[in-house]
């Protein structure tokens, strides 16, 4: 027995070392390796065609792409910067920019962009939105995406419902859709799947920022706890607590749960972007469609979900890194990227494509463009999104704090 154990141990150790020694693969010294971090909603997609194309066009540069799960993305990015070990290029959300710039993590790209031929094929509005408040451009545009409402056409038809354009109409529709379809006394379809966990600020924004709430007032003071903001927030909380048009799991529902509920028919409406359209069509075919989010008391607001590539200041292959970021922002490649991500190209010359069965989702996107907004460019925004908003929202949904306390917590975070 002892001998067997000993033998097992020795084998494990030897095997461990053998493979440990065999593993590190170093590229030839004259090849520059660019580490690229990205996230895509659909884990099945592959960037290989794009990478192969780039490497063929740029001999001497190797792209080492790494998919980082969205749930861990921001934390991984921050800790890698803090550890002095960031990737060379990474996909970056606009609301992280102030924090990353503050940390000195990003390399300014103005000089590169001035030399880059493709810059005029990117929408001016995109350049405008992505420029940092210090007047520099740190980010290379990659995709745009605007959030809209998905809805079940068949359920609307069955109940004779019209597409809601105001929040009151929306509430009535959501209430009508929330019902027991099997007759067992249990609600099995909910009108509106709300994302109560991290990332749900998009849903919240569409109803709260459209009804009088602002992050900052005209003088630049934090205004999230204004009377209007508290009332608008109360209305949003009531969707779940009072009217119960969202499933009981709402406070913990994240991206996966909200989409899964829509795909399984448990919810009849939810907010997301074009990235989910393909899956929705696979599940429901013609019975799924989209409309722009309804208006609140003061207008409409939806989230401009952006995505850029940033080159990191710590990178020692910045030239090559920029080449890759620029490559992805060129019309043909960008379109290829969008086919993986399901999002909208940032190139003017890609606007006139035929989108086939995705046209209705494309339309909902473009119809929402006028009122799509971004979160404030403030260093505290990242943490607001990652942890402050989710915790406050969950507690408000569960009745632990009032709307007023929630808005005060949010406001204090920015003070």
């Amino acid at each position: 027995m002892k001998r067997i154990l000993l033998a097992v141990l020795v084998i494990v150790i030897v095997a461990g070392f053998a493979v440990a020694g065999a593993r590190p693969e170093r590229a030839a010294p004259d090849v520059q390796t660019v580490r690229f971090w990205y996230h895509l909603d659909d884990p099945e997609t592959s960037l290989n065609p794009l990478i192969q194309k780039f490497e063929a066009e740029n001999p001497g540069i190797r792209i080492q792409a790494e998919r980082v799960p969205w749930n861990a993305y921001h934390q991984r990015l921050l800790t890698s910067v803090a550890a002095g070990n960031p990737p060379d290029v990474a996909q970056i959300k606009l609301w992280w920019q102030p924090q990353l710039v503050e940390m000195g993590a990003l390399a300014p790209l103005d000089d590169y962009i001035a030399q880059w031929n493709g810059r005029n094929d990117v929408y001016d509005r995109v350049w405008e939105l992505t420029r940092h408040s210090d007047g520099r451009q740190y980010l290379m545009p990659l995709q745009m995406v605007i959030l809209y409402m998905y809805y079940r056409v068949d359920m609307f038809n069955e109940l004779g419902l019209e597409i809601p354009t105001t929040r009151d109409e929306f509430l009535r529709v959501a209430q009508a859709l929330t019902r027991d379809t099997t007759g067992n006394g249990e609600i099995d379809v909910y009108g509106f799947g709300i994302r109560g966990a991290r990332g749900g600020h998009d849903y919240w924004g569409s109803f709260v920022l459209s009804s009088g709430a602002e992050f900052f007032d005209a003088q630049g003071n934090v205004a999230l706890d204004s009377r209007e903001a508290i009332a608008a927030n109360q209305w949003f909380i009531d969707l779940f607590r009072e009217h119960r048009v969202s499933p009981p799991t709402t406070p913990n529902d994240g991206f996966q749960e909200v989409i899964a509920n829509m795909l399984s028919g448990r919810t009849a409406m939810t907010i997301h972007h074009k990235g989910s359209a393909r899956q929705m069509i696979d599940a429901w075919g013609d019975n799924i469609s989209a409309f722009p989010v309804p208006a609140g008391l003061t207008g409409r607001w939806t989230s401009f979900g952006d995505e850029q590539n940033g080159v990191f200041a710590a990178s020692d292959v910045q030239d090559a890194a920029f080449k890759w970021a620029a490559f992805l922002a060129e019309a043909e490649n960008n379109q290829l990227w969008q086919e993986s991500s399901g999002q909208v190209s940032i190139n003017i010359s890609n606007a006139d494509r035929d989108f086939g069965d995705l046209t209705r989702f494309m339309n909902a996107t473009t119809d929402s463009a006028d009122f799509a907004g971004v979160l404030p460019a403030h260093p505290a925004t990242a943490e607001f999104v990652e942890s402050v908003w989710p915790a406050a929202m969950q507690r408000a949904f569960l009745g632990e704090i009032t709307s007023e306390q929630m808005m005060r917590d949010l406001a204090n975070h920015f003070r």
Partner: protein
Amino acid sequence: MKRSSHAMRSLFLIHLPVLLIVLFAIGPYIWSLISSITPEGAIARGGVRYFPEEPTLENYRRLFARIHFADNIFDSMVVATLSMLFGLSVSVPASYSFSRFRFRGRRVLLLQFLVINMFPVVLLLIPLFVIMSRTGLMDTYFALVFAYATFTIPFSTWMMTSFFNAIPRELDEQAQIDGCTQLAAMMRVIVPIAMPGITATGIYIFITGWNEFVFASVLTGSRVTTIPIALQNMVGEFQIAWGLLTAGGVISAIPVIVLFFFVQKQLISGMTAGAVKG
């Protein structure tokens, strides 16, 4: 008559309660196993199925085909093995010293190993993060090997001190009379006798390294990704693909359970020895 009532008694007082506890202990695994052979589509439809209509190994195939799960197993293997080697090579001499010698400061030093084992992991997370960043060890096997040494060295030193204490000292003296130096006596006589205990401790370190999540989540994750991190990532990446997740869980639990059964007797006697004497 009397026999059967005795059988009934033992059925209700022993067999059934034990069976319930055993079911509680392995229930989650049974359920995971069932879920892992249920087609993804059936899980997505909701509801609970105890007997999947069309059992499938698809989830296991996907696990190894689509994801770099084999790489993760490899990383875990390397980290656990190196941790074991490092932990043992440092703590075998230390515990031999504690067991065989009486020297100034011995009690304090021995106690120190006990106490640092009890400090919160969060107390070490930040400085180790900073150290690994500064030394460029971030995201390498060594980051985890050193981090795990923070708790494996104290633990195994204590464990093995009690194993060494169980070996009669006359053996050392005999070896020295036979002409061995102290070091040779330790290596050639005592260590082989203590081998079962050392093996058990080593495997315990291996299991801990295989299972650890918190340090791995902070110190690695990109170039080195151990199984716990890979599993946690899968939660974020897949749309709550429970079939896939449970398949990953089952696969990664098997090695530690098997290893553990090899050494459970040794390990338990080592862990309880101190306490029983108390």
